[in-house]
């Protein structure tokens, strides 16, 4: 699939398949996902529970926990323009150097990311020490203060000495952002970073991430189910459903011209506080079981436009310069009407 992105790619995923071998059976969690992320952009993976967005993000550094296994696919990382690294072919030692140093993560619950026995400063300096960015823990603590200043932590000299239970949710999340950024990564992957914090803190964190992105030259991959966040933060969006990307487009196009029936339904189901809506459209049915997923297009049991052909897996069709959809509605000769 070749969309003319005209950008400097930082990470490319080609044909990724991930299965989980559970007692219940084989969960086909990721079923042929491909995308390219440009350097310096904010790329969003959007979807509901079970769509595979977290697994995809973890696959980027082979951080899939057992019983998961990457069956097939390639992940190519370009730390610098022109230099490429094939993630799948690296040794364990090499991938460990990339994970945390060049590609960093922040997860949903900051409380579980922090060890309650150690101070925030210890966490940061331990990370830096592990990636050989400082020589000793003492140097690390000094650097940690600087890191905390960068993430706008109030009172950084004091906070360095704080234990996680002494910090509020927002401060913990800032701390976690600090830890992830201490290694000056090229890519920051944020998986539902604001689900556990209040709206006002969420706004602060998002604005922090935006600033850091430009000041540090980060590429941000944001995983969320919150369409509002997507509109605020993202440059390009990939909508995932049941382990596949069903639509990918620049953020404006996704909201103004959603093509895939799932994307459309999703947007109609999200209440917008700024306008008085008279009816939320719900999507009938439930998310499919990925052990025995529906044949062909995985959305077809819930799709109002279902047709025989949907029982075959749809390829991706290009409907715009940077806009692709995996839906048979767009495979026809005639172009589809807008709106």
């Amino acid at each position, binding site marked *: 699939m070749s969309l003319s992105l005209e950008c400097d790619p930082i990470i490319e995923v080609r044909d990724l398949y991930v299965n989980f071998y*559970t*007692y*219940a*059976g084989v969960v086909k969690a990721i079923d042929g996902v491909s995308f390219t992320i440009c350097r310096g952009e904010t790329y969003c993976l959007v979807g509901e529970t079970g769509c595979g967005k977290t697994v995809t993000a973890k696959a980027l550094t082979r951080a899939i926990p057992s019983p998961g296994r990457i069956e097939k696919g390639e992940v190519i990382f370009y730390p610098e323009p022109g230099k490429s690294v094939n993630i799948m072919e690296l040794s364990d030692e090499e991938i460990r150097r990339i994970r945390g140093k060049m590609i960093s993560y922040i997860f949903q619950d900051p409380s579980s990311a922090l060890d309650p026995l150690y101070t925030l400063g210890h966490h940061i300096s331990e990370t830096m020490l592990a990636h050989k960015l400082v020589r000793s823990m003492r140097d690390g603590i000094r650097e940690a203060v600087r890191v905390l200043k960068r993430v706008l932590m109030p009172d950084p000299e004091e906070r360095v000495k704080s234990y996680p239970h002494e910090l509020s949710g927002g401060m913990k999340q800032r701390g976690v952002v600090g830890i992830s950024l201490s290694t000056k990564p090229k890519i920051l992957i944020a998986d539902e970073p604001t689900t556990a914090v209040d709206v006002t803190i969420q706004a602060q964190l998002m604005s922090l991430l935006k600033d850091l992105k430009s000041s540090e030259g980060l590429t941000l991959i944001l995983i969320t189910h919150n369409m509002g966040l997507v509109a605020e933060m993202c440059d390009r969006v990939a909508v995932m459903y049941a382990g596949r990307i069903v639509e990918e487009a620049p953020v404006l196009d996704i909201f103004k011209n959603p093509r895939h029936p799932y994307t459309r339904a999703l947007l109609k189901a999200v209440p917008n506080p700024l306008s008085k809506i008279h009816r939320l459209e719900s999507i009938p049915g439930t998310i499919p079981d990925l052990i025995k997923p529906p044949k062909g297009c995985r959305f077809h049991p819930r799709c109002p436009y279902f047709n025989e052909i949907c029982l075959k897996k749809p390829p991706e069709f290009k409907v715009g310069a940077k806009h692709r959809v995996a839906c048979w509605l767009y495979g026809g000769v005639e172009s589809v009407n807008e709106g």
Partner: protein
Amino acid sequence: MEERGEVYEKKLLDRIVDIVVDRVASVLEIVRPGWRTRNEARIEEFKLTLYAFNRSPPGLLGVTLVTLFVIVAVLGPYIAPFSYDMPLVLCDQNAYLASPGKVITVREGSLCHQVYGIKPGNYTLILGADDYGRDLLSRILYGARTSLVVAILVMLVGPLIGILLGLVAGYRGGYVDEFLMRLTDVFIAFPGLILAIAFSAVLPDRIAGVVEGYPIVSRILLTLFSLKPEHVGPLANLVSVIVALWIVWWPGYARLVRGMALSARENVYVEAARAIGVPTHWILLRHILPNISGPILVFLTLDFGAVILVEASLSFLGLGAVPPIADWGRIVYDGAEYFPRAWWLVFFPGLMTLLVVLGFNLVGDTLRDVFDPRTRRRIEFKVKRGR
């Protein structure tokens, strides 16, 4: 949602379970029409639990041992060749410390024949006999009955007290909880064995008084233990051990249940029940207890074996079952002085105790795996995938 009628790979035992459970369900359906549809899901879950149990060979071994034990205990007194207190030395001197397989002869017109009504002929003492010539096999069969009845009587009362107190303490909290838990602490602080010894020394006279005072009580107990009426005295000793074990056994359950009730009451569905206006006793019995029943059941099963062992130990120390009552521990106590000459007097009762306790332990361990949600899921899918 799972598809109903999903095909499980059923083993033979599973099919037997199906037949038995379905039969019982049909009977219940006749008694209470409509019961079956209302409890369809419950029946399926129950069957699934049993299938899960079937997947564990140690568990099945345990069930076999326990079942055999119960059969032997119930039928023992009826199939035993001789009574538990029949001194065969009166018939034939060879019966004295007879080794397993020895044959004795009862002569026509002898004391055994005329007074005790034993038909003349040759008898093989399969497991041997003790110093009174009492047939060991018979005594072991009666001993099984003793062990089973003691265990049942202890387990009916002791855990019940503990569970009730634990529920109240855990759910109410506050001063009630504090008071009950300190009471529990006091009882736990006593070394169980010493308490049992003390009670066994003190209670028999009192109990004897009670038992004689209420002939119904003595009649029931004598039937349960399959004893002759003249042995009411030794029965009192046994009963005092049972009472001692009630007192020693309840605190463990109180603590266990209290801890579980404490966390169970934080569940949202308990709050939902309160919002509906469900009265406290209802909440305890329908919302708290069923959701903590798994660990309790495991505890109970393991305890059955423990009680049998403790009772045998007490008898072995000379408390508890007093001759001529047949009790495995007591047989070992009496036979110890002839060891290793008459090794069978120690070996066979010991072996029986071992097997029975082992059986309960195996069942209890398997139940623990079956009830723990984490291990249960693994087993469940083994059932479904046939692995």
